[in-house]
């Protein structure tokens, strides 16, 4: 069987009619974590519940109740952790899901409460007015870009930013629109550092993935090395000329006292006016010698000169 035939159109590996939603190593690691979490929950909750329950019941009954309670809670935690890779996807797409639900439910309630032309009118107003007013439209677009960028960055982190052993990715925190594009704060998990994002053209790859012009990464503050800021540029907000305020400090009624020197006659301003003088080698110029240290390259092809950073 060829490899491609194992793949369903959705990119899930499809073996023996079963659809693998979570890849095997990830699932295994999550299952191990879930088992540990189950036993820890069982122990802690069971002990606590048993102690509390034995205040009211016979100690043996209380102990049994504690174990049952602990097992139930542990099972819930187990299920949550095992399903977390899937739940996480829902969490990541929560704004879109909420928005989609709001649109669907909004539309149906609107259709029920008003006649067709009324609901069409309301929809036209709700959509048309922000679309017509440029600042509102730009704001909305900026927020949409923020949502998009969070997904794109997540994709990049999963695809080519090195992760730690557990496969946990950097945590994408807030995204905010800026005049030039977006600014995203990211919390790095253990095993990562700013260096990982800086090394060999990672930022250029990020820019490509974010459909942006440029991406810049830097620390977000002096306090936490893990908190970094990613600036994504997709617009040029600095295209206009900025007028200097210095002339405003000058009062209006200043006497013009600029002396334009009349002493300079317009001579020698063109090539024929300047004689062709032979180059006389000055006697004291040092002879052109071969460099003593031939290992130092004068200039490498890309213009990089190591002595610039010496």
């Amino acid at each position, binding site marked *: 069987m060829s490899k491609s035939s194992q793949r369903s159109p959705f990119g899930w590996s499809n073996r023996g009619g079963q659809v693998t939603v979570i890849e095997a190593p990830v699932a295994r690691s999550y299952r191990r974590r879930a088992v540990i979490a189950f036993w820890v929950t069982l122990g802690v909750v069971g002990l606590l519940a048993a102690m509390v329950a034995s205040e009211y019941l016979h100690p043996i009954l209380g102990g049994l109740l504690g174990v049952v309670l602990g097992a139930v809670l542990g099972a819930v935690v187990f299920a949550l952790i095992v399903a977390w890779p899937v739940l996480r996807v829902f969490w990541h797409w929560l704004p879109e899901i909420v928005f989609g639900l709001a649109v669907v439910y909004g539309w149906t309630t609107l259709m029920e409460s008003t006649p067709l032309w009324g609901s069409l009118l309301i929809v036209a107003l709700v959509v048309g007015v922000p679309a017509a007013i440029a600042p509102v439209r730009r704001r909305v677009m900026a927020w949409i870009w923020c949502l998009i960028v969070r997904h794109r960055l997540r994709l990049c982190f999963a695809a080519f930013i090195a992760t730690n052993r557990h496969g946990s990715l950097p945590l994408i925190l807030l995204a905010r629109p800026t005049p030039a594009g977006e600014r995203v704060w990211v919390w790095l998990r253990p095993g990562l550092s700013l260096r990982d994002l800086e090394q060999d053209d990672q930022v250029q790859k990020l820019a490509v993935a974010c459909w942006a012009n440029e991406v810049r990464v830097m620390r977000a503050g002096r306090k936490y090395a893990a908190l970094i800021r990613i600036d994504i540029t997709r617009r040029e907000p600095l*295209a206009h000329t900025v007028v200097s305020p210095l002339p405003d400090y000058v009062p209006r009624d200043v006497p013009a*006292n600029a002396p334009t020197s009349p002493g300079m006659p317009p001579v020698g301003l063109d090539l024929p006016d300047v004689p062709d003088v032979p180059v006389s080698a000055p006697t004291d110029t040092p002879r052109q010698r071969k460099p003593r240290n031939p290992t130092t390259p004068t200039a490498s092809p890309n213009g990089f000169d190591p002595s610039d950073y010496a």
Partner: protein
Amino acid sequence: MDLTDTIELPPQPDAPQTVPVGAGLSIFDPVFLGIDEFGHPAYLPMIYRNILIGGEPGAGKSSLLNTIVGHAALCPDVRLCLLDGKQVELGLWKDAADVFVGPDMDHAIRTLRRVQTVMDNRYSFLLARRRRKIGPNDLFGQILVACDEIAYFSATAGDKKDQDLFAALLRDIVARGRAVGIIVAAATQRPSSDIIPPSLRDLFAWRFAGRCTNDVSSDIVLGHGWYARGFSSNSIDPNNQGEGYLIAEGGIPNRVKAAYMTDADIIRVADYATWTRRRSGLAAPADLRTAA
């Protein structure tokens, strides 16, 4: 927001007809440099600092230098010492300046020697007063040494000995001038090691990189490693002169668009500065200076 808006400044009291009053600026105030990507004004505190400006020809280096010189010219207690291998870039401030050096290597070295002597005298004086640095409204004012086209003095004009001497003097002034109010602002196109010694370049705390022709050049101006983090002034639109990366407070390059003064603006400010300075005795009239 409309980025072309001029930043509003407090209204200036009307100057009386006869006695010129200074513009009320101080070099202890940060210089208004332009706006950043967020439309916020970008300020550059120049006191106790030095700045290196780099970028390809036509990147807007001289315009930025003019903004800094213009601010200093309007400060009543700042003396200007201008070196400009191209003459016209800072030449409009000639009458307001104490010293204006054109493409004249000897004059440049003599001037830097003078500044160096002043610096030494100031340190001796401070030591005698058991102080370590100057403050606002001190006994003596500040000196702005602005040098456009350093490459002319440090790599083109004169012979190797003079060029090295120039670089050494400038390095000394950058290294030691801070605490006695001697501020250096220098511009050159590509401050690579064959133009100015890296030991001099690395002394400049603040950097402005206008558009550069490649990422390595940008790193040379801003400092090694910024390109890897996505800060390369090579990505600036060549037609957007005056935009560049500024490293100032915070230490992280900030994309800014420098404010621009037209020649008419510069002449207006320079004439006013000359007028107020002559009255207050800060700048000698040009004829006296050339005779000396």
